[in-house]
Structure formats: C-alpha cells, structure tokens
C-alpha cells in the first residue's frame, strides 16, 4: 500500500476536526492532516492536489455540499480503476443502516467509524498502510 503521507478530513465541526488533527499528529507525526469544512472544499482540494489523497475521513451532514454529494462527485471524477486507491472512512454520528447503504451505492471503497476516532480505531485504519 505504501506509507501514508496525508489524511484529508472533511467535516464541518471545528471541535471534532481539531481533535482528529491533534490525535493523528500525536500518534503519527509523519502524517500531514489537511482539514476542509465541507464536501465542496474537500473536493476542490482533491482535484487540485498533485498527489491525490489516498485516505479521506468524511462526515455526512455538512452545509454547502454534504458527504453523500461528495461521494457522488468523487465517483464521477475518479475512473473506476482508480477508486481502489482512495479509501473513504465515513465518520458518522449515527449508525443508520440507511446511510450506510446509501453511501455504498455512491462510492465502493468505504468503511464506517463512529465519531470520534479513538487511538485504537485510528491505528486499525492507518497501520495497514505502514506495514510494508
């Protein structure tokens, strides 16, 4: 998978964003954290990034462009054969099965995590990247 250099976080809650940034920087200081406040800002960042983020933490309920819409535009933007390279972790505050089905229908490479991430959950997500 190759070493993880960057995580893109898309969430409108400032306290949650700040917490996730601090947790990641504390445990994985080599990883850059990039914060964006809604789907549109996140998508703009993704499109303009020279090296595309391979791991994105995504909230679902956001103003301007929500998580579902973001998945839709990302799906349209990335060719199918590229989609396995960018994984999305949905940071949800509810465990609505309906939301899960809906997100899976929008983008294939998705996992779920209740908010906020803990040390253990974070290492489960990041460690596979750092294995080899």
């Amino acid at each position: 998978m190759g070493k993880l250099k960057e995580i893109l976080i898309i969430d409108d809650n400032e306290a949650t964003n700040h917490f996730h940034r601090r947790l990641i920087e504390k445990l994985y200081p080599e990883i850059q954290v990039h914060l964006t406040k809604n789907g549109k800002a996140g998508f703009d960042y993704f499109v303009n990034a020279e090296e595309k983020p391979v791991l994105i933490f995504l909230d679902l309920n956001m103003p301007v462009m929500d998580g579902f819409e973001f998945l839709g535009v990302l799906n349209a933007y990335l060719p199918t054969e590229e989609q396995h390279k960018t994984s999305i972790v949905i940071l949800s505050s509810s465990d609505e099965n309906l939301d899960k089905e809906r997100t899976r229908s929008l983008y294939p490479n998705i996992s779920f995590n209740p908010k906020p991430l803990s040390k253990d959950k974070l290492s489960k997500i990041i460690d596979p990247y750092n294995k080899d």
Partner: protein
Amino acid sequence: MSEANLHHLLEKLELLVSENQSLKIENKSLRSLVEETEPDASKVICYNNELEQFTYVATHDLKTPLANISGYLDLLEMDLENPSEDIKDSIKWLKYSVREAMNVIKELTSALKARNDKADLLIPINMDNLVESILSGMRSTIKQKKVLFICDFTEIDEFPYYQIALRSILQNLISNAILYLDPKKDGVIQIHTEKRSDDTICISIEDNGVGIDLEKNREKLLGLFKRVTNDGSGSGIGMYIINKLLENYGGQLEIESEVGIGSTFRIILPLTEKST
C-alpha cells in the same frame, strides 16, 4: 476547549433532562387524553409525534459534542505526565459520566426508533393525498375556526421526497398558519406547488393571519422554544423541527410576512434525486 465544551454540554443535558421530564409528563397526559376523548385522537397523535421528533433531533444534536468531549478526555489523558491520583480519579469519573450520557442518548434513540421503525425513503409523493390526510387530521380545529383552504397542485402534484419528513414539515406549517389566523377576519389558507427551476420545486403556504414582524423576529422564528407571539398557544418547537428536517433531508424555508396582512412560508425542495 474540553472544559468549555463540557460546560456547554452539561447545560444542554440539563435542558434535555428537564425537557424530557416534561415531555414524559406531557406524553402521559396526552395518552390519557387519547383514551378519554376519541374524537380528538388525531390531534393528540400529531402532537405526540412532534414531541418524539423533538427528542430525536435534540439527542442527535447532543451526540457530536459528547463525542468530542470523550475524544479530548482521551487526549488529555495521553498528554498528562505523571498525573496525581486525584487527577486520575477525576478523569476516570469524567469518562464514566460521558459514557453514561452517551448510553442515555443511545437508549432514547433506539426507543424512538423501535416506535417508528419505518425508514423514510425517497418516494414519489402525491401532494393531493398528503395534504388531504394532514387536513383530515386537523378537521375539528378547521371546522371550529372556520378556515377556508384553497389548494392548487396543478403545476406539480407528484415529486420525489421523504414522506414522513415532508408530512411533519407541512403539518407544522399548516397548524402554525391556523394558530396565527386573525380572529377578526375569515381565515383563508392557500397551499400550492410550483416548479421554481429545473431542479427545485416550491410548496407555499399562504395565510391571511396576524403576520410576523420579520425584522424583529427573524432570530426567534428559527430558534428553539421561542414563540413569536405571546398568546400562550403553540409549543415553539415546530419551527425547530422544520429547520432540522430540511437540513437533514435537503431543502430550504423562505418566509415572507407583513403584520396585519398575513404570512407566506415557502418550502423549497430539490428535485434531483441525491441517492441515485
């Protein structure tokens, strides 16, 4: 950050707990009312639904700040070097209390879910049927207040949206319109749909009621538990629910009003199906 958060949350929790208590009492008395007065049952059920929805959105909104507190507590623990026993003890009980609060929210949410375990799916909605069924639930009030309803859905009568959410939004707006009718005039409420553009439709509810001074009341109108008038009727949670539902399911509310003339509430809904 964490302490401010905690304060804020405790305040919110206190509010919720006392709110819940009164909701419970309210619910109980409503239930006995249902048993006593069958003819008014539909009204009571409407009100009960509203209370349930309020509990739902309130618990939902508490989840994120609670989760943040729990996260910052973890960070705090990681950052503390050689904490004293007292500090460790405080952190332990802070964590315990946060967990407890989260459990309460979980229980409340699942209790509510068990009660209305029908998923709100994006389905074609027929305005004629929906409005008719809402109005028939308010029959006795409409008759008593002699309200004339003029409905026109010729421009667009079917569109995809979330039925339970839209029913609740319309129910709240219509009962508000009835509530704030001018007793000195014959009450007329007009409901109609129109296509705004290729991808939005607009449902408007226009009344000739007392009207609202928007300049003075805009904040109040959208806030929680705030009524624009002081006549004592209305729970004040209707507008909160409407805004929360539109936020969650997609859509906007526009308000136009003039004191003494009446108000028009417009629900703007997206026509594009997000889920496909």
